[in-house]
């Protein structure tokens, strides 16, 4: 009984300052207009991408050959049945764009998660233990840097097949180097700090030092880097899709919509313009947020 109260207070004591710190950080981030605007925009995009079937339940695959190349509603010949027009098979462009957003966002965020996890482990161990392990990991990183990235992803996808899972794995695993290097750098300097030495001196095991004392201190560069990389991954995903190596049909993706629309560039401008605008808007809001986060959390990363 007595012991229980002791545990309760200690948990409370641990959590309160952290919550306060998080709230302060959040306020600091929100003070940057770019972070605020970008954050609101990307939140809206994610919400729409998740919740649109509630408002706009149109099948993205249903074809209506009579409605082929219907232009968007504001153009002559357009109609509210196809607010953003119809494609070469008479499929609803708006609905396809909305479904496509799910692929891009899912692949973007999940691949960055994979890359971060791989990068965190390799970077932490490389920086903390140093020595042979460190030079091995960093040499492999050098090799990965020199490997033509696009060719790596294309050839691996050609081997494994282009499921959404493979795509996330491949894009994530080929992007670990940046994270590992950033973290390794931070760890090298943190390792020399007094609080780490003190913790080691009282006999804390390495494992605990790494995850309790060092990891929390590299979170903010990771957050900044991760946000900016999501934007890159989404561009790569749409590029792969454009080449026909993205998420397989019939799932609509922005990249494939572009590739298909390109064939009708002379007659149907909306088929090539709108998916690109969707990609750009998404990337733009993520970049805005990333820039704001970087300014607020980690000014040292300005050059990335």
């Amino acid at each position: 009984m007595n012991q229980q109260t002791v545990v309760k207070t200690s948990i409370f004591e641990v959590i309160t300052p952290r919550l306060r710190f998080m709230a302060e950080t959040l306020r600091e981030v929100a003070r940057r207009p770019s972070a605020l605007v970008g954050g609101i925009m990307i939140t809206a995009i994610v919400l729409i991408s998740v919740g649109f079937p509630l408002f706009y339940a149109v099948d993205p695959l249903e074809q209506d050959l009579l409605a082929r190349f219907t232009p968007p509603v504001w153009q002559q010949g357009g109609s509210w049945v196809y607010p953003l027009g119809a494609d070469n098979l008479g499929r609803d462009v708006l609905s396809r764009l909305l479904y496509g957003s799910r692929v891009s966002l899912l692949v973007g965020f999940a691949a960055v998660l994979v890359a971060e996890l791989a990068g965190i482990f390799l970077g932490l161990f490389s920086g903390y233990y140093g020595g042979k392990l460190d030079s091995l990991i960093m040499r492999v990183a050098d090799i990965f840097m020199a490997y033509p990235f696009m060719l790596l992803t294309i050839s691996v996808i050609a081997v494994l097949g282009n499921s959404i899972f493979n795509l996330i794995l491949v894009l994530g695993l080929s992007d670990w180097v940046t994270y590992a290097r950033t973290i390794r750098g931070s760890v090298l300097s943190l390792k020399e700090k007094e609080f780490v030495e003190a913790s080691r001196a009282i006999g804390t095991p390495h494992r605990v030092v790494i995850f309790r004392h060092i990891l929390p201190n590299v979170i903010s560069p990771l957050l900044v880097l991760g946000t900016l990389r999501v934007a890159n991954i989404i561009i790569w995903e749409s590029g792969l899709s454009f080449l026909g190596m993205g998420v397989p049909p019939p799932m609509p993706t922005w990249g494939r919509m572009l590739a298909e629309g390109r064939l009708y560039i002379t007659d149907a401008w909306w088929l090539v313009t709108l998916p690109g605008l969707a990609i750009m808007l998404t990337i733009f809001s993520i970049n805005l947020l990333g820039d704001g986060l970087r300014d607020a959390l980690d000014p040292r990363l300005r050059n990335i």
Partner: protein
Amino acid sequence: MLQYLFKRLWHTVYVIIGVSVISFFFIHLSGDPVMLMLPGDASHQEIEDLREQLGFNDPIYEQYLRFAGQALRGEFGHSLYYKVPAMELILERLPASLELAVAAMLIALVVAVPIGIISAVRRGSLLDMGSMLGALFGLSMPHFWLGIMLIMIFSVKLGWLPTSGRGTLAHLIMPSVALGLSLMAMFARLTRSVMLEVLSLDYIRTARSKGLKERIVISKHAFKNALIPLVTVAGMQFGFLLGGTVIIETVFAWPGVGRLVVQAIFNRDYPLVQAIVLVLAVIFVAVNFIVDMLYMYLDPQISYFEDK
């Protein structure tokens, strides 16, 4: 100095060996090209014979060693699909890709550096905010989409520029602008932030207080020091650029290595893919090597004797 040079050379060697190993194993995982090479009604015996003849039945490390040995002698084997030496095909296409990459890099630098400098000098002005917002848009635009938009506007609507192919300067404009725009955005932001940093340093104040003209302070004193990070990033990006021409070459039907490699991957043309990956990696490493050597010229402060 010599020691540093050797260290850098060793670095280039192990990176190239590493890339060749990775590409070799990846490509060999991707399946057997023999079936694609023979007519559909080939007998089992014929398939086996061809596999034996091409050495696909040997253990994979033996195949790698054989490949590496030949590569060292400059032989990269024959393309299985085109039936000519892989190197010949690459050398035929490489100039087109290099031309595109160099043009994109030049356009990016020529536009971005002045914008970055002016934005840094006039920090917070409308010009600064406008160009930085523009740069953020540039970073957010997928280059292949930009390419398609350019085609739609300048070829389809206005009829000013050819939609695809290579040959004249007019052919080069759209693909290189499309490929260079995001680099332009990146360089403009980089130049601005580095210039801001440099301009706040003491020696700049000294130069100004000596009564030097602002133009001289900026171009001679500040920009020279801002060059170092710019050169590093430009070098790195040039390596990526060559690998990144894959999509833009498809959009503009540009006869470069990028299109060649995509076809080769689809055709399971092992020797060709391997040779291309190696050539691109060698170029990447070589450019970075040159950049490192440039440092010595740009920044005499960097010491190459520290770890004896």
